[in-house]
């Protein structure tokens, strides 16, 4: 029983990690390569969840919902890039933060005006709503789908960045945009595409999270903070770093939440452990980030530049 419980907790950590990776991949690329701080990344996640909820509700097909989320992410990402973000590249980070924070407020209020303050309903397809038995422990089938999608995106993005021509141009553009431009590559278009790709991945994360989480206005902010922790730990601009860091953060958070309060009961009274355990567990990922920043400020797996 303890072994299967540990296995279930490892799967939970993995699942949380890959979901964080979907968000972190786009954020780290935009931050690392275009040097743009995008706080509205969480809003794209929220829009993805809303798109999935609305389309799944109208068509009874979760697959269509996921496609709708991808499309919404891409389109909104491109619109955002051309309307707001592209005007801000030359400004400093504080302006980025201000502008994208404004966008966060705008999107939150917009979803509340259109769909109201109540959370939306998202149905899971019958085939995914069951559980799978792992050594006598029932684990939700849908969580396996999340893990599969996350791993597929990780492999796909690694190929895109390291093997494909587009990825090579992106990497080159991050080091020396003038030279890449002089060689006849439209660097603005490349940046816009990159931004839209990151937005689509955030929306995909939102769509995958929609059946397990409450789809409501403001759902993007708590997860954005954890995502920022992930890209700092992984090394800004590094997609593979984001992947490993997401898994580390996912596992640390899950196992910390589970075992820290139990561990504390060995030393302290039950009441103290019950109160302090969860508080300490929620600090774990931030402590991890602080340690990484102190020891390796460039992150654990920095992108190789220059």
């Amino acid at each position, binding site marked *: 029983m303890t072994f299967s419980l540990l296995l279930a907790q490892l799967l939970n950590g993995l699942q949380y990690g890959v979901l964080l990776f979907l968000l972190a991949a786009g954020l780290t690329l935009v931050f690392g390569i275009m040097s743009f701080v995008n706080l509205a990344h969480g809003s794209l996640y929220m829009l993805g969840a809303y798109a999935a909820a609305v389309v799944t509700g109208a068509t009874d097909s979760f697959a269509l919902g996921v496609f709708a989320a991808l499309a919404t992410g891409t389109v909104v990402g491109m619109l955002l890039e051309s309307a707001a973000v592209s005007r801000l590249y030359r400004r400093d980070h504080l302006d980025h933060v201000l502008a994208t924070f404004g966008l966060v407020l705008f999107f939150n209020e917009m979803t509340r005006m259109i769909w109201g303050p*109540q959370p939306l309903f998202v149905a899971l397809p019958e085939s995914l709503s069951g559980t799978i038995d792992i050594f006598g422990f029932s684990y939700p089938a849908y969580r396996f789908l999340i893990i599969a999608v996350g791993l597929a995106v990780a492999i796909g993005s690694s190929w895109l960045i390291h093997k494909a021509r587009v990825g090579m141009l992106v990497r080159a553009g991050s080091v020396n945009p003038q030279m890449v431009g002089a060689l006849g590559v439209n660097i603005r278009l490349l940046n816009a595409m990159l931004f839209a790709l990151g937005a689509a991945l955030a929306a995909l994360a939102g769509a995958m999270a929609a059946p397990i*989480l409450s789809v*409501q206005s403001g759902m993007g902010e708590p997860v954005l903070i954890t995502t920022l922790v992930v890209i700092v730990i992984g090394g800004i601009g590094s997609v593979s770093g984001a992947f490993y860091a997401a898994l580390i953060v996912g596992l640390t958070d*899950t196992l910390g939440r589970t075992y820290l309060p139990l561990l504390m009961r060995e030393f302290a009274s039950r009441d103290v452990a*019950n109160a302090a355990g969860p508080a300490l567990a929620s600090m774990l990922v931030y402590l991890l980030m602080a340690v990484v920043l102190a020891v390796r400020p460039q992150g654990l797996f920095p992108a190789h530049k220059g």
Partner: protein
Amino acid sequence: MNTRNKGTLSALALVAVTGMAHADIKIGFSAPLSGPVAAVGQDQYDGFMLALEARGGKLGGQTVNVLREDDQLKPELGNQIARKFVDRDKVDAIVGLGFSNVLMASLPRIVESGTVAIATNAGPSVLAGKGCVPNVFSVAWQNDGSAEAMGKYAQDKGYKRVYLMAPNYQAGKDFIGGFKRFYKGEIVDEVYTQVNQPDYSAEIAQLQAAAPDAVFVFYPGGMGVNFVKQFSQAGLTKKLPLLSAFTVDGTTLPSLRDAAVGTVSGAVWDVALSTQGNREFIDSFTKKYGRTPSAYAAVGYDAANLLDIAVRKVGGNTSDKAAFTAAVKSAGAELKSLRGPFRFNHNNLPIQNYYAFQTVSEGGRVTAKMVGTPLPEHQDTYAVECKQR
């Protein structure tokens, strides 16, 4: 903006009719109307306005002017709003007052001024006990009531081992405390999670491994949606009775539907009640707002009807605050509450039934069914500490 205009207009109107015996009744309504718990505030306001409109915009025969403010679930803002209502708008009564933390922050100025205040969402233990005051009422509930009802329900059902979960903050601890006050069996574990935690997979796995007879949780708003969805996806709703308070309710059920079927909630009101006027209330609310009302809406509705009786008792003359306060207090016993038996205790909190409702699926529609009244005409445990009579 709108309320400000209304305020200006009513101020002008007041100037115009100076000298008349009594002008319009002015009511300040505050609730969280934006942010993650906006649905809760909106239901209270809509319920209140529905009862007001049913009376042609009048309470006790007097034309009513409602000033609406959004407290954003921020105590400091609640305090400012209370000051504005008392000092600038000089309202006759304040209704709403938001969550416990906001209510407590608003209290000092309200107590000082003697203005009648009627909470529609909170009944903190301090207000019910040592800190009870004459002019502040809660028409809603004492906070622990629903959890106490679930404790009693678990006890009556004969569950031997129960697992408890709540967010790691004061209300979470109060609810767990309330449950334990009436449940005498074994507590397998008490788990406190981070406030606004989105994912409970780790905690649900631990819970599953502990194999209790039943689970009791308090997860209001979005947290509840997350928890119940994930609990059901882990295949546990069919195996384990899930008892809750303020988790599966009228505001969250539309986004949970089948995931909540089988769960039991402790509450003062749900659509399943067959009390006098309840059917009409549900029908007119659904017709006007296009959604099913929640307990919050029912309490808002009751608050307007309570004021109607009180204003009539004083003949529209609300300027004598002490007399108006006494009228509100005695109006409690006359109120035909949507919740069934109702009266104010000496601490100004309700003595009322706390029910157990089970979420059921009837002909493809997910709704609530009453499965018992664990605490009939229940008076809260803090009332003995309240010195006022």
